[in-house]
């Protein structure tokens, strides 16, 4: 895992940039093979996103949870852990804050904050459990977090069915108005696109990510443990506790993401047939963003645009929306296999080196 971090901090700008380009080219090739017009497709994608304020606002809505789950995955990465469980943590955050939003009776604002925190903490605990299993039982976090994703899905459904869904419905009641995170006036400005405070919270989260990891004592320990658990143990740090802590904070980000989705966008939660997918996308976002908070925000913007714009592509050029997955996959692949990217970059890099000498 240390390797991963190493990989993503080198040439941290050029490589993702080229990877994105290569990804788009792969997508174009796939489109040509399918008999579509890639130029028209990418054009319609951009038109969809930037064509009117409503869709632009909705794109921002789409980007928000990706920032959260991206931060979640990146934070864990930085501490030597691979959090595939952001998905489940997000779901748990959703259900916890919807519960708080529906059941609690609190003054406006306070209610929202309480519901938000409960969602975040629930997600955090869900993640911490994975960390705890790793710390005490040595079970690899990748496996457990995958399992915990499915458990989260069914657990959330159970909570819904048992406590929150009225007879004859398949979704909870709406949360109380006091718990809503929607920003009415902004939404109005964007032609009733569902904009909410969650976006601001996500950006704050990115700042918090940076401060925690690079400015605090906790962050020092987390990074040390992530980079070299043996040396950290030797230096008197509690490796196990830090693993749990790292997973808690990762889960917290994802949980907050889930909370913002229900408090800001939906205002209720429906019985789910499948996982929403933001957590898995978060992995991609984190990887493209080089596991830095700023990179994650940029990565989320890219992903938000691609996935939201995909419908436009379908409308404008008839390209199935799944094509965007091909693009995203290629981007991750090229970021991972940066050696391949370097092949493409060789001429450029060589020139740079010469200039430097």
């Amino acid at each position: 895992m240390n390797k991963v971090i190493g990989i993503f901090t080198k040439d941290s700008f050029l490589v993702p940039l080229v990877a994105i380009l290569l990804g788009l080219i792969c997508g174009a090739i796939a489109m040509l093979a399918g008999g579509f017009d890639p130029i028209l497709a990418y054009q319609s994608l951009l038109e969809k996103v930037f064509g009117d304020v409503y869709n632009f606002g909705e794109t921002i809505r789409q980007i928000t949870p990706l920032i959260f789950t991206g931060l979640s995955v990146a934070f864990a990465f930085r501490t030597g852990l691979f959090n595939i469980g952001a998905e489940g943590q997000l779901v748990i955050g959703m259900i916890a804050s919807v519960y708080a939003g529906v059941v609690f009776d609190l003054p406006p604002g306070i209610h929202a904050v309480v519901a938000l925190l409960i969602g975040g903490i629930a997600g955090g605990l869900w993640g911490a459990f994975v960390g705890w299993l790793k710390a005490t039982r040595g079970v690899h976090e990748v496996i457990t977090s995958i399992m915990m994703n499915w458990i989260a899905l069914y657990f959330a459904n159970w909570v819904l069915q048992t406590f929150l869904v009225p007879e004859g419905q398949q979704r909870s009641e709406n949360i109380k108005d006091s718990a809503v995170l929607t920003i009415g006036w902004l939404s109005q400005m964007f032609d009733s696109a569902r904009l909410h405070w969650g976006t601001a919270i996500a950006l704050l989260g990115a700042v918090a990510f940076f401060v925690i990891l690079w400015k605090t004592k906790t962050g020092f320990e987390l990074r040390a443990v992530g980079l070299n658990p043996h040396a950290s143990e030797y230096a008197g740090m509690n490796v196990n506790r830090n693993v749990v802590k790292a997973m808690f904070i990762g889960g917290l980000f994802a949980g907050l993401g889930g909370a913002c989705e229900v408090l800001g966008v939906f205002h209720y939660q429906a019985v789910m047939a499948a996982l929403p997918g933001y957590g898995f996308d978060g992995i991609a976002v984190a990887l493209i963003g080089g596991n830095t908070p700023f990179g994650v925000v940029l990565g989320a913007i890219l992903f938000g645009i691609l996935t939201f714009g995909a419908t436009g592509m379908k409308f404008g050029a008839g390209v199935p929306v799944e094509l965007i997955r091909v693009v995203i996959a290629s981007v991750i692949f090229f970021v991972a296999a940066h050696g391949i990217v370097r092949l493409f970059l060789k001429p450029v890099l060589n020139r740079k080196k010469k200039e430097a000498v």
Partner: protein
Amino acid sequence: MNHLTQENIVVEMRGITKRFPGIIANDNIQLKVKKGEIHALLGENGAGKSTLMNVLFGLYQPEEGDILINGQKVNITSPNVANELGIGMVHQHFMLVEPFTVTENIVLGKEPKKGMSIDIAKAAKDVENLSKQYGLMVDPHAKIEDISVGMQQRVEILKTLYRGAEIIIFDEPTAVLTPQEIHELIEIMHNLVKEGKTIILITHKLKEIMAVCDSVTIIRRGKTIDTLSVANTNPDELAAKMVGREVNFHVEKTEAKPKEVILSVQNVTAMGNRGVNALKGISLDVRAGEILGIAGVDGNGQSELIEVLTGLRKSQGGTIKLRDKDITNKLPREISESGLSNIPEDRHKRGLVLDFTMSENMVLETYFHKEFNKGGFLDYNAIESHAAKLIQEFDVRTPSIHTPARALSGGNQQKAIIAREVHKDPELLIAAQPTRGLDVGAIEFIHKRLVEQRDKGKAVLLVSFELDEILNVSDRIAVIYEGQIVGIVDPKQTNEQELGLMMAGSKRTQGGTSVE
């Protein structure tokens, strides 16, 4: 040693140059090895010996130069080619697959077959025959992870013989052995030569060269210095040629003035990693103002002892006291804060976070102290000035305090660790293999620092596999064998032979002094 005629030269390396990023490991090296001789390759750490042999064995490709085997120019592109040319290598770090059996390791890559499966019965038979022929008794069915280091080395030798090696390279084969095992190895090497094999022996131990070799090639900083016939040289000449100056291996120090007991270990027992008893009731005292050296062959409980002392491993019984404080099974942090510092044996694994900057590494154990930590937030200004001070004081050569530790050379990494640990001004400083893999200059520096601590009235516990180091630096020597202290001796009253015997398990003979 006579007639260097072309016919009996089996290996000739001409003008070999091999570069690594930032370093020329081999710089136009020349080497000629005669058939049937034991040829030493002598040089300091990092001189380029292993690199040269890795080139000969096909693991590295040189940028320049030619290799001739039996007068024939060859292109050794892989170990496979080397094997076919009859070159075998016993590596410094054994190339054995731990969960495999002896037989499996030996036949790997050249397995006898019956139908589609490996003919394990035949393979084991072959191994047995070979080991008989050369007097290398090993159990063909034992697993590598269950046998001793000496045995593992024999497996490595058998691997080369199984492949029909005529030329066998030994890379520092004695570093991991007890003196008795070294004797047996020398016996084996003589057997091999008798059977017509040629041996290239890498070492920086002059005594060994004098004892077993026929000729020696000296390498310094990647360059060939000279090739000598062992019969016509002496250790002083070799040392001078190896280091490039007259060397004084002796550590300057005054008589120790031991005072009160700082560390007291009573009857401590602990389990090792494989669930066996690694420490079987170990007891020792370290006093203020003395250096206690622990001598022993690797794997006799040294690592476990250090781990128990530093709180990384739970002890099952016994007590450990640091001054009056019971630190048995306390957390590492508490022990460290009570005044114990430790230079770990594996600096990359335990000593440093290689991807942290130097300044971060310098506060790895103290970042939470008030001077660096303001209410949960770290004061990076304080941390950096602290690091700058230490780096200057201990002459750590680093481009800047913001450089990741990874970028420093081994010697400088070690200096940084020592700076950090000594700066804590501990009651007890544990130094585990503090000079392993370092060059003479760095070793001198480190030994000075250890003595300095002692002279400041601190206790020092030195753990080392190098008998020279133990004999030179310690004020008292405790010999550890199979998890127990088998004797405590005065370095001035003992010698390597006696220590060697004790390290191999025999109790100290009455009287203690022994023959020169």
